């Protein structure tokens, strides 16, 4: 549960890769001599993970290492058979799904109210919200655990969901986005006799597509990447999320590198595929926050 403390940066979209321009020059740009090694270095850990994931244990214990002679698909099946991997995947999907939907609803409604409505108590409530933004998660870790315990949610998916239903950062971010919308829009709707909720649902929300996508991606990444909180809140293997499950899997298969890399690869596949499909939205979202 990392809480970014900086306001969203104003970010312009990255330029497209312009092949038409590059195609005009006859010879390849000399920059490739720097770009290619750089990207290979960055990809090495991932490529080596994939190579090891399809090797046999004997092949992984050669030094110097060599490429596998055949593809060991059974490693992936062995991960599923030897661990509650399916549970981890489903649990992560449930937790991130519920937390995502509730953040979209709660952050946008509260963000709208703080941006647009003048009412008694809003200033104080917003100030308290900002205060919690600055607090590192480690400070609230132990009391949150005690609160969750008093709800009887320890070792339960609810422990991962309830404290994350809304984030101060999300509310703050949505408030900034609502402030950027011209107020005339809602005034027109109000004069036409629409209620606050009607204006919010019918006029403003349809304009908030990109901010909501940003919020969705940031929420998803922070839940997906969360480790410390699940580590202290969950004990049973079948209640774990992917990150926590993967770390216990590593503890149980310390030197079986092909099995470990197969598990790591499978655990990262969903988010990497999502990233490749929606690269632009991901990059814009990450640029507007500090999530990792």
């Amino acid at each position, binding site marked *: 549960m990392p809480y970014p403390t900086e306001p969203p940066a104003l970010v*312009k979209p990255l330029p497209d890769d312009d092949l038409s321009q590059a195609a005009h020059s006859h010879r390849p740009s000399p920059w490739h001599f720097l770009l290619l090694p750089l990207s290979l270095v960055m990809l090495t850990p*991932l490529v080596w993970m994939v190579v090891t994931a399809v090797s046999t244990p004997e092949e992984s214990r050669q030094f110097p290492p060599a490429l596998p002679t055949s593809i060991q698909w059974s490693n992936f099946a062995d991960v599923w058979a030897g661990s509650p991997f399916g549970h981890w995947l489903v649990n992560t999907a449930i937790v991130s799904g519920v937390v995502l939907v509730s953040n979209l609803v709660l952050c946008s409604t509260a963000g709208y109210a703080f941006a647009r409505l003048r009412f008694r108590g*809003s200033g104080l409530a917003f100030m308290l919200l900002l205060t919690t933004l600055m607090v590192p998660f480690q400070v609230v870790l132990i*009391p949150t655990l005690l609160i969750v315990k008093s709800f009887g949610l320890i070792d339960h998916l609810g422990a991962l969901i309830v404290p994350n239903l809304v984030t101060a950062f999300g509310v703050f971010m949505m408030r900034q986005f609502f402030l950027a919308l011209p107020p005339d829009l809602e005034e027109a709707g109000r004069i*036409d006799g629409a209620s606050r909720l009607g204006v919010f649902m019918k006029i403003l929300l349809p304009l908030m597509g990109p901010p909501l996508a940003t919020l969705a991606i940031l929420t998803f990444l922070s839940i997906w990447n969360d480790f410390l909180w699940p580590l202290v809140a969950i004990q049973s293997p079948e209640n774990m999320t992917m990150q926590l499950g*993967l770390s216990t899997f590593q503890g149980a298969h310390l030197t079986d590198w092909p099995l470990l890399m197969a598990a*790591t690869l499978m655990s990262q596949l969903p988010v990497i595929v999502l990233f490749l499909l929606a690269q632009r939205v991901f990059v814009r979202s*990450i640029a507007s926050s500090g999530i990792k």
Partner: protein
Amino acid sequence: MTSATAPPAAGPSPVHRRPSVLLRVWWSDTLAGWAFISPTVLLIGLFGLVPVVWAFVLSFEQNDLISPGKWVGLDNYRKLLHDPAFSNSVRNTVVYTLVFVPVCVIGSLLVAALLNRRVRGITFYRVAVFIPVVTSTVATATMFNWLLDPDFGVVNAALNKVGIASQGFFRDPKEALLAIVLMTVWGWLGFGVIIYLAALQSVPADLLEAAAIDGCTRWRAFWRVEVPLLAPATLFLVIWLTINSLQLFDEIFVTTKGGPVGSTTVVVYYLYVQAFQFFNGGYASAIAYALFMAILVITAIQLKVGRRLSHGER
């Protein structure tokens, strides 16, 4: 004041009924406002504010998180000052931060400058740099455990190939923290690059053209024109990366567990051990508060210095 789409008999004349309309609007705003924020206020109150106060109280208690706590006044904070294991964790965290932040900031500046051009395949190059950002911390740490394995790791194989002896990395007390830096730079570089690329887009092209006309080389123009204009992005990155490196935990937990011989025990890892292995909830809360205060003070100093530097340059 009227809208073309409004039905003619939409309501009474706004001039005639003004006071009551205002009152009604005020009421409806208060009701709507609280209806909109009350779930959020309740949740943030319960999981944001209450724990902050509670943790502060805990830091003055001896508390095993199971039986009722015992008030011990400032004992936990006094213990902090005389605990060699805590000062070791502070030293490790400071060393890690002092190496990680500059390497990551300068690295992402250079890589962003490299990626900020239109060449064939730039999308591929960018994806290669960005993918580690979405790779989870545990997965990153598991991969690096394997890459940096002293006996069978591919990095040692590459080192041997160029005539360097095999290294211990995570198992060598002298190298473990640097290996952690290497791994986390891999994970964070793309984040810095995203921030810098976005900032580079806003550098006006005519400034660079003017510099070129004045006989400035592209390399000089980068350092003298672009880098100063990137100051806000740099300040944001330095602050953000510092906050995150002071809270380093996941990667340590999965790779070294604070070892070998305490060489990678950072503050949050020490906090975790105190709270959940030794059940010193009070002491762990004091560590958390010390960390909180350190982050606030360091961020404030960085903001102040950063603003002064960027004003001095103008």
